[in-house]
């Protein structure tokens, strides 16, 4: 395949090996780690799906959305609304419903936002997400600032999602399917057109691509996949509140994608795991006399990302490739 080298789209062997090892670790983990850590890793996997959905816009199409959490949160709320207080609801119609809900919201909002470019796109996506955030924040009917509780996980019929380990493997399956789907998509005519739009939208239009339709399709699909993550999040934590759709949630996703490396989906996964792990570590930092290091985790996270971007602009995966290349040079 004539692989463009941009964005590490074609993953080098070294990265593939790391990913395979990571997969083995994920499969083995629930059998060696405690339930507490299994739940933590489940959340990491959910956020990895969320980060991949954003990467389709940010890394592949070149659209940096600062409101992507809206579609994550909406699907979570959709599940919360349809889950009754006294029993579980079937996974098999609520999951498609939640995905469709997020996709529909992304389609409508996308219709307005994908007309804008650069900084305007960032601002407009954020504005729409903030509107949805305040709609939920201010409305008692929608749960208000306290949010909503889900007392039961969805009923899958064949397997019991209330079981921590089962939920873990269900999430892992969703992660793998999403990754496989997006990797295929990346090399499809649709994916190549999105990459062309990132590099030079003007030329794409000059050779006859209706770029508006492509960007809108990407925005809608990214919204639906963010919805998958949001649905899983609500099911796993049993709780939704407006923060799920908030500015911080959107910004974290952007940082995850940058941290891991943009435009190849593997980086988004690595970035999500690294981000959540660092968060865990930084929050657990001890106090130095009067000064509580852990309380200021955002400072350490910010410093870390600035350092990483300065020394490894292509993220953690890019770092891997560089070492790989240097090794080959010596050999």
């Amino acid at each position, binding site marked *: *395949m*004539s692989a*463009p*080298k*941009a*964005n590490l789209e074609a993953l080098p062997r070294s990265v593939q090996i790391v990913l395979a090892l990571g997969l083995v670790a994920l499969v083995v983990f629930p059998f060696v780690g405690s339930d507490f850590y299994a739940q933590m890793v489940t959340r990491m996997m959910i956020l990895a799906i969320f980060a991949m959905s954003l990467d389709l816009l940010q890394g592949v199409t070149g659209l940096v959305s600062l409101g992507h959490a809206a579609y994550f949160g909406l699907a979570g709320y959709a599940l919360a609304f349809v889950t009754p207080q006294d029993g579980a609801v079937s996974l098999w119609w609520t999951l498609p419903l939640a995905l469709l809900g997020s996709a529909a919201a992304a389609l409508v909002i996308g219709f307005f936002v994908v007309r804008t470019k650069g900084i305007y796109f960032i601002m407009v996506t954020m504005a729409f997400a903030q509107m949805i955030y305040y709609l939920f924040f201010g409305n008692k009917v929608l749960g208000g600032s306290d949010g909503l509780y889900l007392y039961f996980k969805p009923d899958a019929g064949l397997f019991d999602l209330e079981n921590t380990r089962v939920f873990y493997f269900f999430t892992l399956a969703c992660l793998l399917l999403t990754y496989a789907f997006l990797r*295929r*998509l990346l*090399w*499809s*005519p*649709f*994916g*190549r*057109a999105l*990459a*062309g739009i990132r*590099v*030079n939208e*003007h*030329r*794409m*239009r*000059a*050779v*006859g*691509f*209706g*770029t508006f*339709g*492509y960007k809108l*399709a990407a925005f809608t699909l990214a919204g639906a996949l963010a919805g998958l993550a949001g649905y899983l999040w609500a099911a796993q934590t049993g709780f939704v509140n407006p923060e799920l759709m908030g500015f911080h949630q959107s910004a974290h996703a952007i940082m995850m994608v940058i941290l891991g490396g943009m435009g190849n989906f593997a980086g988004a996964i690595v970035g999500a795991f690294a981000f959540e792990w660092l968060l865990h570590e930084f929050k657990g930092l001890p106090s130095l006399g009067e000064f509580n290091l852990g309380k200021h985790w955002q400072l350490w996270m910010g410093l870390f990302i600035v350092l990483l971007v300065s020394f490894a602009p292509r993220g953690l995966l890019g770092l891997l490739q560089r070492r790989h290349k240097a090794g080959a040079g010596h050999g």
Partner: protein
Amino acid sequence: MAEVLLSAKGLTKRFGGLAAVDNVSIDLWRDRIHVVIGPNGAGKSTLTNLLSGDLPPTAGAILLGEHDITKASPEQISRRGLGRSYQKTNIFPPFTVWENVRLAAQSRAAQQPWNPLRWMRAADTERSVNERAERALELAGLTERRDTVAGAASHGEQRQLEIAMTLATDPQVLLLDEPLAGMGVAEAERMVKLLLRLKPQHAMMLVEHDIDAIFTLADHLTVMVNGAVIASGEPQAIRNDLGVQAAYLGEDH
């Protein structure tokens, strides 16, 4: 009389008080090369941008075949069969030469962004697209450079790539904005040969500065100064026109 493929009447483009293109009418015939010349700032590139839909005209009308494309978008105009190249190289630098041309050819495949089945097939396996891309690559003489990253190709090769991408969309009408700019003698000669080879099937408009190339290629010559056409006709007649010599040929050369 040859077939008119593109006809523009009274085209005007104003930027504030300045008329960059002032009441210009131009016809492009199949099997003829229409060369537009003029000093810098004469409005040649603006005219090209009006015809390709990159800029909306302030006044005037453009017919492509029997379709009115005056208000059409660049992608609509491209899909109606007009291809253009750019004065400033306008390519996809991080992609290979092949991927640049393949992507251009892909725009002519059945476009169904909503069809999920099309999302799942590798882009490289679309045979009709590959064939069209191969042909364009070969015409432009780039077959051997197909795996080069476009941004790392030489200037001349990038100019060839411009043409290859344009050809990959199977246009009837070609607008080429200074295709010879910055090319070496051998490269320029090859480009002139290519343009002559493309002539029978296409209606061509060429914006060019290279005097030798102009008189080798032109079937029809239009001279622009300050946004307006000051002369238009057979190249030899124009060459002997004293007004044109004073305005352009004399000063510049």
